[in-house]
């Protein structure tokens, strides 16, 4: 076709136009089909997705339950404060952001350190506080600069506060940020939904044990959010339900006096109401400020608390295990009466030592106590009497009786992680040691068990519990800290331990013998100096636990380094005829029980029974050392 026909040309062009027009209609029909698919057939699905986009369920974290003492004194509460928080996953250069924030808001080195620690522990989609407790002025300043800091926001949060600071810290415990281990516990309890939005979890003490009571029910808010996740308006709201309040058996004032009585000494005190098992005071010294943990503790404080040789983080009342020393003697005597190995009036002669297997076990008193009956053996703390008794009873009788008193077993107190201690027995030795020659129990080992030394190792709460059993005529109540839990909504109170755990079936006349002898201790024996002039009748027993083993030489307190000095112990209950309080005290490296431990007990009993407040920590009675032999 070398020559073109214009008409033909035009026809061809028009046919191409028609093709193009057809193509247009085809494509537009395709689009229309697509729209029908999306907007009619799949409409419900996309409608749901649009709603999911727009509506976000925001958890409202409930107020944590309060912790109150038996008289309603607040020991743990909440306060609301603004925090400045960074979501690390939404930021690029953390350092730069923090530097920028420091330009408008006071951010100190310790804040940065704490943030770093939180960052290491966190799951990185969380928002983490860089500063807490912002002032209104700081909040306003940040809001004006917010656009510069993507991923940084102000949040209003509830914080736990322990108004007493270090006071009662070992029993209250503390809360900290939720970790993976806490999450496992939450999953175990199937509480995942209820913990949405919760950032804190009880880590130790009552905060840990009663976590699921204190937490409360999380509320939810249906919020319309925009694509940036910012809330536009609230659509509906289910209010959170505050956690339940704990009312303790603890008497805060008694606790305070007991803590102050320790001064700067280390040790523990557990005071129990014998008739209920309710703990009136639970002291472990030194203690620490649990408030440090609430916002996340900074590395420096954490290091100090953990590396201190005084170990303030150890709850000595539950986790310190110590030989009971002579405080063991009343229990030995009670055991002997119960199994019929001794009568109270039965006399033995104490020449100042007890010979067994060619070895002389010495009594503290040179020349001995002479003729000794059960009363005198306790009042004067005669060792020879108990060397002999231990040998007569045998290790299996001793361990079975002490086991009934709860020694060497967890008491089941409502704080987790209690230590077991060691109740020596043939079986224990078999299990505990690996070499066959060490697994055998030697009769000679029984002798020093009788005066509370040797393998004996008990926690102060076990000693307090055993004392309470004696004071309560052989009936054991599980020691507990929480009196009742109050449901915040209904006000209903759930008591924790209304029933006696077990009755040992001890004979009242046997208990009477021990009670008499322990009254004698405080009247004319090793506790007499500490209880001189007391307006009530108390029963007690001093004890000394060896830290440093004497190799044939006399123990001189002054000649030994402080950390090698003996631990001082004292167990007591009062009033003797109708005891309302039973307690055990241990002062680490305090020397003799009469010297360091008894004065603390005197202050505690004076307050509890008479309402008398001391004006200084219990002084160590240095003079007691020489006079009152143990």
């Amino acid at each position, binding site marked *: 076709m070398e020559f073109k026909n214009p008409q033909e040309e035009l026809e061809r062009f028009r046919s*191409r*136009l028609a093709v193009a027009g057809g193509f247009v209609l085809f494509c537009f029909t395709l689009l229309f089909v697509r729209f029908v698919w999306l*907007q009619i057939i799949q*409409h419900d699905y996309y409608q749901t997705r649009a709603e999911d986009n727009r509506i976000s369920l925001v958890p409202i974290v409930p107020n944590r339950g309060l912790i109150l003492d038996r008289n309603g004194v607040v020991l743990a509460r909440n306060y609301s404060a603004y925090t400045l928080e960074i979501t690390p996953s939404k930021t690029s250069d953390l350092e730069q952001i923090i530097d920028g924030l420091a330009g408008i808001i006071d951010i100190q080195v310790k804040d940065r350190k704490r943030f770093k620690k939180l960052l290491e522990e966190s799951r990185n989609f969380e928002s983490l506080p860089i500063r807490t407790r912002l002032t209104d002025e700081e909040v306003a300043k940040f809001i004006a600069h917010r656009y510069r800091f993507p991923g940084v926001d102000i949040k209003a949060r509830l914080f736990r506060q322990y108004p007493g600071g270090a006071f009662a810290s070992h029993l209250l415990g503390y809360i900290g940020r939720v970790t993976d281990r806490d999450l496992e516990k939450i999953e175990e309890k199937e509480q995942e939904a209820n913990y949405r939005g919760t950032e804190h979890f009880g880590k130790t003490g009552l905060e840990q044990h009663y976590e699921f009571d204190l937490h409360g029910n999380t509320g939810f808010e249906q919020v319309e959010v925009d694509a940036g996740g910012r809330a536009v308006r609230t659509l509906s709201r289910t209010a959170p339900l505050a956690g339940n309040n704990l009312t303790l058996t603890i008497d805060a004032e008694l606790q305070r006096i007991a803590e102050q009585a320790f001064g700067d000494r280390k040790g523990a005190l557990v005071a129990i109401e014998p008739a209920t098992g309710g703990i009136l005071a639970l002291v472990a010294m030194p203690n620490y400020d649990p408030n440090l943990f609430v916002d996340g503790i900074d590395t420096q404080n954490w290091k100090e608390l953990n590396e201190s040789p005084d170990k303030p983080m150890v709850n000595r009342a539950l986790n310190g295990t110590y030989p009971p020393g002579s405080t063991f003697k009343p229990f030995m005597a009670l055991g002997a009466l119960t199994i019929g190995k001794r009568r109270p009036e039965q006399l033995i002669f104490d020449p100042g030592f007890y010979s067994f297997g060619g070895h002389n076990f010495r009594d503290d008193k040179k020349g001995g106590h002479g003729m000794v009956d059960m009363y005198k053996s306790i009042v004067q703390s005669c060792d020879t009497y108990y060397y002999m008794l231990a040998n007569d009873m045998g290790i299996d009788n001793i361990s079975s009786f002490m086991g009934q008193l709860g020694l060497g077993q967890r008491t089941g107190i409502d704080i987790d992680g209690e230590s077991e201690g060691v109740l020596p027995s043939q079986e224990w030795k078999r299990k505990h040691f690996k070499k066959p020659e060490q697994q055998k129990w030697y009769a000679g080992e029984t002798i020093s068990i009788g005066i509370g030394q040797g393998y004996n190792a008990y926690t102060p709460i076990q000693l307090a519990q055993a004392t309470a059993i004696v004071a309560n005529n052989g009936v054991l109540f599980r020691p507990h800290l929480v009196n009742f839990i109050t449901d915040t909504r209904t006000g209903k109170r759930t008591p924790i331990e209304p029933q006696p755990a077990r009755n040992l079936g001890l004979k009242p006349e046997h208990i009477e013998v021990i009670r008499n002898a322990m009254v004698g201790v405080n009247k004319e024996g090793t506790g007499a100096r500490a209880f001189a002039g007391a307006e009530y009748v108390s029963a007690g027993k001093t004890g000394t636990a060896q830290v440093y083993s004497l190799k044939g030489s006399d123990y001189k307190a002054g000649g030994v380094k402080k950390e090698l000095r003996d631990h001082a112990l004292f167990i007591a209950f009062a009033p003797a005829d109708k005891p309302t309080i039973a307690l055990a005290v241990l002062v680490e490296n305090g020397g003799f029980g009469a010297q360091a431990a008894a004065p603390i007990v005197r202050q505690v009993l004076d307050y509890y029974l008479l309402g008398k407040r001391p004006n200084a920590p219990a002084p160590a009675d240095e003079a007691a050392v020489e006079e009152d032999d143990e």
Partner: protein
Amino acid sequence: MNRGMGLAMMRNLVQRLIAPIDPPLMLIAGMLLLLAIGVMGSASPERLNAQLLNVVAALVVMRILAQLPPQRLMHMAVPVYLVGILLLIAVAVFGDVSKGARRWLNLGFMRAQPSELMKIAVPLLLAWFFQKREAMPRLRDYGIAVVLLLLPIVLIARQPDLGTAILVLAAGFYVIFFAGLSWKIMVGMAVSALAAAPLAWNLLHDYQRSRIITLFDPESDPLGKGFHIIQSTIAIGSGGIFGKGWRMGTQAQLEFIPERHTDFIFAVFSEEFGLFGNLLLLTLYTLLIGRGLMIAANAPTLFSRLLAGAVTMIFFTYAFVNMGMVSGILPVVGVPLPLISYGGTALVTLFVGIGILMSIHGHRMLVQK
């Protein structure tokens, strides 16, 4: 001055002003502009005034072009094309980078995007070229046309600006198609292009491949472009038959739709006006394109036929690619919804096209005489 005379003069002036304007085209475009103002009032009310100014400017440009005789347009074809190529080269050398692409040329007083010019310049030049070869377009001529077409496309694709490159390519292709390139050759080219695709794929870097994969499968990049498409299909689907109502679209108002005043404005429209709104929009575009094709069918010269046909099909390409992309059946390329999306440049380009159509239609008798 007498009042009647004043009125008559006014009437005269208005008549002269609107004389070159094709009423059907103007009516359809006007309705689309009304829709545009409505959607803009929902998607981005703060930009409404700026867009109204853009509309005024675009209408002025349209009016000027509508009056120009097609011969003048033909004379401008070569210079405009050459200037466009030079500017594209200048962009490649001196251009400003914005959002990772070098598209803008800073002229001191304003920033220009020369690739936009090519959407009109390329069909203009190719129409001119075929007019010159009217006597007997040989295969060689088609070859030359393809080279003239590919030169700017390579420059634009390098910026990179895939959306514009596709639009320019389409515009040029329409001219060649309307000029009568035989079906055999077109099919042959399509087949060989498909055959060459695996070869080209092997030559690409990994990152280039992944970019292409994302282009066709947005779900593989759910946080990037995939997120846009997921959100825009949710918007369209949740709109249903009647839509959620003006300014009631949750996807739009809560900012889940990205670029909701520009490339994704169709999602806003569709969410708030539903299937009925979409049908109205499709109808208006179909009418616009139909009118354009009619003008092309009646155009007196090869040049004006080819130009009118190509310009009309540009509208189609814009509309189809944009709505197809936003509703998730086409890959995501930056193409605005014609006459609706916010932005002056695209609007002016489109009204240049409408002006050209009006010019061709208005001058058809003059040429025949």
